[in-house]
């Protein structure tokens, strides 16, 4: 725990192109032994983006295969999943996963969702060999770091699958997208850049042009709502 949370956030903001450094940021701030960042589920598929060590990578791989575990729960609930004592609470929550990691010497597991707006597409997984717990502040901080990573991961994914095709093409449609970004930022209280990313993500997830999604937002056919950290989309 050599670096402050602010330093780690600064590094994460800057290092969008270096996912291998995402894990270090968590290890420098929190009392954990390993970290992994993975996408899971339908939206972006299941893939480990970064892992600090083989055990961290294995924890995520197991969860992909078994379809259960803290990452899945964090993603589905859009909330952190904190398990300071996996040996006692694990068997009830995720019997197959807990059984599989008996020999890995893992005591505590923490997972934080990767999400942008209503899109949930992965999780950051932290583990410790020694039993540890995260304070409320630490939990919030790790959640904030996962949010920054979420934006990087979604942007990279949109770029790699040819996000340009999804870009609004004409000046007129760009105008609609800007207007819709304003509506979304007011609906869920995010920055204009994030609002745009939410629209882009929504367009990607529903395989539609950004302009159509923007038009639906302007006409009120598509609405975003926020409850705590959860953002939902209503049609």
């Amino acid at each position, binding site marked *: 725990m050599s670096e402050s949370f602010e330093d780690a956030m600064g590094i994460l903001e800057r290092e969008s192109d270096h996912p291998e450094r995402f894990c270090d940021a968590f290890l420098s701030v929190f009392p954990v032994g390993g970290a992994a960042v993975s996408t899971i589920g339908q939206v972006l598929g299941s893939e480990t983006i970064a892992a600090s060590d083989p055990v961290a990578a294995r924890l995520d791989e197991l969860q992909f295969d078994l379809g259960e575990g803290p990452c899945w729960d964090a993603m589905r609930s859009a909330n952190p999943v904190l398990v300071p004592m996996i040996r006692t609470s694990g068997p009830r929550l995720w019997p197959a996963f807990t059984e599989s990691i008996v020999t890995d010497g893992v005591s505590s597991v923490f997972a934080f969702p990767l999400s942008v707006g209503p899109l949930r597409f992965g999780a950051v997984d932290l583990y410790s060999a020694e039993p540890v717990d995260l304070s409320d502040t630490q939990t919030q901080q790790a959640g904030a770091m996962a949010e920054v990573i979420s934006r990087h991961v979604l942007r990279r994914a949109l770029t790699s699958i040819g996000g340009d095709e999804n870009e609004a093409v004409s000046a*007129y449609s760009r105008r609609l997208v*800007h*207007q819709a970004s*304003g*509506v979304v930022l*007011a609906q869920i209280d995010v920055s204009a850049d994030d609002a745009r990313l939410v629209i882009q993500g929504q367009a990607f997830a529903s395989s539609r042009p950004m302009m159509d999604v923007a038009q639906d937002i*302007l006409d009120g056919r598509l609405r975003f709502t926020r409850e705590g950290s959860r953002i939902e989309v209503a049609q």
Partner: protein
Amino acid sequence: MNDVTQQRLLETFVKLADTLIDDYDVVDLLQVLVDTCRDVLDTTAAGILLADSRGELEVVASTSEASRLVEIMQLSAEQGPCIESYRSGRSVSVPDIEVSKDEWWQFRGSALAQGFRSMDALPLRLRDTTIGTLNLLRSEPGAAPEDTIRAAQAFADVATIGILHERTLRESAILSEQLQAALNSRIVIEQAKGVISHTRGVSIDDAFALMRQYARSHSVGLSIVAARIVDRSLRL
């Protein structure tokens, strides 16, 4: 041009000159210009388009925020008088839209459907560089009187000077930066319209009117008001 019109033109130029020697908001200035064209030059609707770094023209100010008018101007910027004026650096007069060029069919259809019958596009020109166009749309067919066109070109020149400031005449790098700055303020204005439309439950067009009203009554630039609405430090 009658005496009343001449008097109003004079007043407008005095007002514009006053604006230009003080700190001013470019988008505000362009808005005053298009509104003046409508009120003084016997024009139904007017709009200014600026070219971005890729040479694509975008509406930065128009007399109505109604999406249909903006659409007509954008179509005219793809295949129509606007793009022709931008490319040639000359004014393009279309006395009867109904019999305009074949390849302008999209613009023609959209303009006629909205009740426009004639149009003039004038270049925003600085020496050899054209940075955008001023567009005047009328609901009656017929060519505009020559003095109207001369006055409109003078407005277009004021717009050009207003956008570029005199100190940028020398450097083309700064020129494109300032153009981009004007276009970027437009992005924030569009976003702010979205915010207000949601928070006040009004249409996008009415949202613009509310924002402009606030900017005027508080003597703050439109771009500044828009930026504060988008960063949520101001709630209308």
